[in-house]
């Protein structure tokens, strides 16, 4: 064996090694499309029959006394009288209600542990303005304390979004159980997050410097510039995609070099995957609608304070709203005191597809049911309020065939509670994610146990 031969063998070995790693990577990416059958480590797997329960299916009528069967991670059966498979663990739920797990489509869960003073635990915003290739799923800490704290209050699925620059990156939809990012992922890359350029005269708060607001005309110019940059990037990415496609068909063409950022833009500029536009006020939402029309892309609004004022444009372009302003103050002093509490009811009346989100980075996502309930206090019906944190976010995320209601065949993300799940006095008794019964423990219950009897 000559040395050259030996070298080439090693080279070939490495080639095959790389190839198999690549293939495995592809497979694991497929696996990342969590189908619910996957057996995550935490919690207890098995066949469960929740009996004598009040079943709030959300998709259909409430079943006052029925059974839900959980098997292979899925809802195997639901109804007033269903047969219970042998070997099922019975959960007597008389006096309790079963709900689908709640979904918060507007968080940064897992991307930040402690927001202030611990920058090492914060992975929300990449440097620079255009980061289409940044993927939230690769920054999410599956072992964040926020995972347990959130799910024990009945929230089983969240979308986690990056936040920085103009194009922040791609959001991920995750179930709140799993030892790895791919075990958690329902949709590893759901949408491209864009902080839609807006006119802002605020130049940052600094107690030590006399910061002056930017002149209004100057602010308009700055917005126009950012919007132009964005449109240029869209056009360039579209052309980039065309060139790549052309080369794929005809290898005699000059080789077009790869660009990691533009590569990431392709499915979005082609309207194949949704773009999540951060926009709050009427002016900005109208601008997003115009952008979606012009660029022929698929859009979702996150924020959406005044979305109800742009109903026609949003409906015409099939743009949904992830509303995250229940716990925010009205921007203008003369806005009605309940301006942001009542916006979901107004969206519902206007026929806009919406869901309610906390918009929180982690600690207070567990308040999601109360956000929905407060919309219920100001005009939204209780049924709609519940849908706004279950079925509606599932629909907006394109997951309504898998989560968001209690129907046979869906992923068994279930919550059993002793009352209306949107009420702050209601106690969560059981949580299932992917059909696994999870312990109702968190950092908070651990510390409670440690100190509750200290004398």
């Amino acid at each position, binding site marked *: 064996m000559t040395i050259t031969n030996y070298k080439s063998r090693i080279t070939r070995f490495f080639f095959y090694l790389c190839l198999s790693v690549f293939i495995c990577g592809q497979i694991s990416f497929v696996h990342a499309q969590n189908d619910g059958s996957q057996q995550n480590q935490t919690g207890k797997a098995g066949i469960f029959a929740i009996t004598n329960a009040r079943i709030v299916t959300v998709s259909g009528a409430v079943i006052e006394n029925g059974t839900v069967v959980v098997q292979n991670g899925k809802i195997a059966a639901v109804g007033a009288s269903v047969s219970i498979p042998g070997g099922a663990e019975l959960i007597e739920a008389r006096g309790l209600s079963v709900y689908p797990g709640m979904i918060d489509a507007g968080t940064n869960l897992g991307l930040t542990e402690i927001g202030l003073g611990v920058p090492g635990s914060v992975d929300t915003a990449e440097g620079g303005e255009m980061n289409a290739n940044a993927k939230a799923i690769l920054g999410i800490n599956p072992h964040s304390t926020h995972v347990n704290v959130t799910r024990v209050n009945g929230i089983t699925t969240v979308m986690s979004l990056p936040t920085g620059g103009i194009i922040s990156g791609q959001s991920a939809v995750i179930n709140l159980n799993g030892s790895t990012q791919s075990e958690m992922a329902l949709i590893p890359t759901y949408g491209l997050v864009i902080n839609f350029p807006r006119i802002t*005269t605020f130049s940052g708060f600094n*107690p030590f410097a006399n910061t002056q607001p930017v002149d209004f005309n100057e602010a308009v110019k700055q917005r126009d510039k950012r919007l132009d940059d964005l449109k240029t990037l869209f056009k360039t990415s579209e052309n980039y995609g065309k060139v790549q496609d052309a080369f794929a068909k005809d290898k005699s063409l000059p080789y077009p070099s790869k660009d990691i950022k533009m590569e990431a833009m392709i499915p979005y500029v082609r309207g194949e995957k949704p773009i999540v536009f951060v926009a709050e006020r009427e002016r900005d939402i109208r601008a997003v609608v115009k952008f979606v029309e012009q660029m022929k892309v698929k859009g979702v609004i996150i924020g959406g304070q005044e979305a109800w004022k742009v109903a026609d444009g949003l409906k015409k372009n099939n743009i949904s709203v992830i509303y995250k302003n229940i716990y925010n103050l009205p921007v*203008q002093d003369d806005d009605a005191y309940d301006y942001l509490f009542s916006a979901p009811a107004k969206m519902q009346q206007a026929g806009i597809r919406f869901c309610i989100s906390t918009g929180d980075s982690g600690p207070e996502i567990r308040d999601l049911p109360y956000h929905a309930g407060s919309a219920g*206090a100001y005009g939204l019906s209780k049924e709609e309020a519940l849908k706004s944190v279950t079925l509606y976010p599932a629909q907006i995320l394109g997951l309504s065939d898998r989560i968001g209601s209690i129907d046979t065949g869906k992923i068994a993300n279930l919550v059993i509670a002793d009352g209306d799940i949107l009420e702050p006095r209601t106690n969560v008794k059981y949580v299932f994610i992917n059909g696994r019964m999870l312990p109702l423990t968190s950092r908070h219950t651990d510390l409670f146990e440690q*100190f*509750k009897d200290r004398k």
Partner: protein
Amino acid sequence: MKKFTAFFLLQILLLTAFNFAVFGQTKKEVLIRNATVITAIHGNLENTDILIQNGKIARIGKNLKAASNTQVIDASGKFVTPGIIDCHSHAMMDGSVNEFSYSVTSMVTTRDILNPTDISIYRALAGGVTAANLLHGSANSIGGQNTVVKFKYGRAVEDFPVADAPPGIKFALGENPKQTNQPTQPGRTPRYPRTRMGVMETIRDAFLRARDYRRALDDYRAKVDKKDKTAVAPRRELELEPLVEILEGKRLVHSHGYRSDELLNVLLLADEFGFRVATLQHALEAYKIAPEIAKRGTGVSIFTDSWGYKLEAFDAIPYNAYILWKNGVNVSINSDSEERIRRLNLDAAKVEKYGGVPEEEALKMITLNPAKQLGIDKRTGSIEQGKDADIVIWNAHPFSVYARADMTMIEGEVFFDRAKDLANRDALQRERETLEKLDINRPPGSGGTAPKIPSEKRQADRDEAVGDGGNH
């Protein structure tokens, strides 16, 4: 006789005018009829009336009689609670809530920066809040003096402070007075203290100086009493005067802190100088030292379940209220936020869920307990005969997420009325549109003269968010 009658009538007229001028307006008798009254002290009373005379709760009972000119409010199917009291707020404080320059700024007072037209007052009323403890920020080891107010929105600023509330002051421990979460500005020297060690020594140093000042004052008073002509008054020390009041038990200390060690250290320091800390504010880890707090009779004013927003908030648990309550500590739930202040009723509801505090005890945490902590419980905090008629009427049980405040009154006077608010909206909208059409308000693109610097109003949610420079 005619002359006499005319004189008599004139007298009545003058007296009425006098009354009107002096008392603002004559107070009508008000009768709230047929409500579920949640007293926050004597349980819940079904189908009960409350009669209000001269701004006070005159009678509580069934089928109360009303005079013909009494304003009757039908509250059938509704719930009545005492007005909510927020023991930690910066609402209506105009500008920075922190006098950043020194770490001991006991000479300043929040009374000097109150804005009675702040819209957050109205929004708080719409959440059922009638009174608040307006505290200096937490940038300083010893911050400024507080103001206890009732939210009499629409009145002049001097009508807001509760006249007989004992004076108080803010202390702060931990990350905020250390100022280590903010980068030091270029060209500036970091302010002392930079550690929890330094914070405690800063407070101790101030009290040593205050004790000397008190001795000088006492010597002077003694000499004056003895008619000693050589008596010379010590120079007034505005920084130390409030601290002397603390030593004399005349001023309440509200100490912001998070970690159990720093909370215990300020209690020990108070032991050392012979005063009692009135409340530990935030006190997210108070549950770790509940017996030590209970022993000293110190109150604790907390968030129900905020946590994790900074390192010293990472051990916060929503069971804090329960553990403290079980140990016999007076617990109140505060907002420290113009946003959160609107939903303190739901924050109180949560302590039933986390640990199982009984309903009335949970309600006390936003009514009677903060009133006690602020020393105003003789006049407000519960629905009892003789107390100020600070009352909220809700459309549902206030611990339900679907509940709304329909009416909020202070001393029998309505300061928030949802029905009126709704009725006024069209008129306000028209006024807004008219104003927007004025040249000054038209965008430059359509030929108007733009205002030079439009501002985007930032609202502070929690102290460190914006506008008040790393408080909380």
